């Protein structure tokens, strides 16, 4: 037995897991090798001392926690065991409904698609009615009005045209926008802008303020193009109150002949 063998055997020697023959072989080596003897004694002492470290007790909470968790685990397990059987039943039931023929399968799929679309459609309609969308819409309208109003103040005629264009995008313009458009019809230097403003007012012509404004405008206008457009509009909205102004226009000598003819025609339309 050499020193390496002895080292390998030391753990067995300490634990006593060694037969007598091996033990006496170790001891005879120690008798002749002081280094191994010393090492065995020192380390053997450490090994023995370790045995003096007492065992500790865990707290009582450990058992309580274990039992509680085990109970929860077992319950969960039982539920999981029950689970598949109900699911299997459901699966079977569902399979019973599913047609075997591909044509009917296709029909089924189409029907569900249609139902899905319907549901989706009705859902989105509902959400459109919700407050948030309404608020958003209001905000957009407000922004458009602001844009329209500020553009109508611009120097450049094309910018003012854009302003009129924006005012059309406001579904129900407020009085501020409408009076700005009326002002444009009355006073804008550019005929094109005036015509565009007139067009923009068409949809709001039922508004009393607009109607009055247009009637007054008929007397103010000097451009034949705008006059004719105004006359057409008044006919369109069948404004009976326009008759007097139209009569005046038809008989006034300073007015463009074509405008007079148009006014005459309008009078007949309104009667």
């Amino acid at each position: 037995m050499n020193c390496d063998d002895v080292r390998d055997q030391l753990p067995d020697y300490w634990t006593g897991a060694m037969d007598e023959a091996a033990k006496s072989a170790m001891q005879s080596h120690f008798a002749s090798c002081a280094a191994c003897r010393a090492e065995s004694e020192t380390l053997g002492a450490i090994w023995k001392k370790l045995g003096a470290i007492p065992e500790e007790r865990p707290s009582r909470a450990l058992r309580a926690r274990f039992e509680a968790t085990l109970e929860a685990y077992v319950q969960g397990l039982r539920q999981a065991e029950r689970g598949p059987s109900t699911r299997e039943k459901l699966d079977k039931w569902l399979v019973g409904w599913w047609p075997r023929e591909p044509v009917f399968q296709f029909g089924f799929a189409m029907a569900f698609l249609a139902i899905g679309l319907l549901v989706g459609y009705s859902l989105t309609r509902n959400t459109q009615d919700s407050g948030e969308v309404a608020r958003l819409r209001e905000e957009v309208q407000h922004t458009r009005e602001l844009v329209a109003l500020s553009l109508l103040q611009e120097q450049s005629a094309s910018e003012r045209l854009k302003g009129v264009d924006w005012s059309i995008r406001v579904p129900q313009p407020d009085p501020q926008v409408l009076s700005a458009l009326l002002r444009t019809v009355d006073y804008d230097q550019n005929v094109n802008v005036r015509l565009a403003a007139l067009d923009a007012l068409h949809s709001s012509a039922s508004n009393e303020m607009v109607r009055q404004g247009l009637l007054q405008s008929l007397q103010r206008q000097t451009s034949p193009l705008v006059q004719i457009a105004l006359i057409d509009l008044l006919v369109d909205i069948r404004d009976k109150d326009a008759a007097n102004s139209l009569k005046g226009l038809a008989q006034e000598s300073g007015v463009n002949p074509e405008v007079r003819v148009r006014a005459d025609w309008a009078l007949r339309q309104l009667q």
Partner: protein
Amino acid sequence: MEAQPDQAVMLAVRDGDVEQIGVLFERHHRMLFNFFLRLTANRGLSEDLVQDVFFRMLKYRQTFQAGTNFTSWMYQIARNAHIDQARKRRLEVVPDDEAAWDSVASAEADPQERLEQAQEIRLLRRALDRLPLEKREVLVLSRFQNLKYSEIAEVLGCEVGAVKVRVFRAVRELGQIFLELSGEKAS
């Protein structure tokens, strides 16, 4: 009625009698607690790990084959639980003050002897805490958990001869640390 061996109980657990795990808890929780306490020196953590081991046993109960050595299997799980936990905390040891060790010396010795013994045990524990984890592990398994070298070899996944070499080296290093600590104390 004679108590069933661990292996038979674990097979029953595997085959659906899950509540039988309580029997194994009764038998082993204290040993496992001491195993973790010696590795971590932290009572709370050790209790968490004991709990973890028993629920891992449930989780992996299907892997328990007839003929498996239950003790080795349990310590394999325990070791993995500890490794996972250490990785989670990114620490090998969660140091705890000496309050982790409540009972210190045997009550029979006379006061002077008891004091000396208590000091020695305290030093040994500090020396153990300073031992690298792999050496501490093999030493704890062989000295405190009373595992046979063949069982330790199964737990660590190595040869019996290698286990003995590791135990020898662990004891030698522990002895050196213990001597250093005693020297510090004496000087």
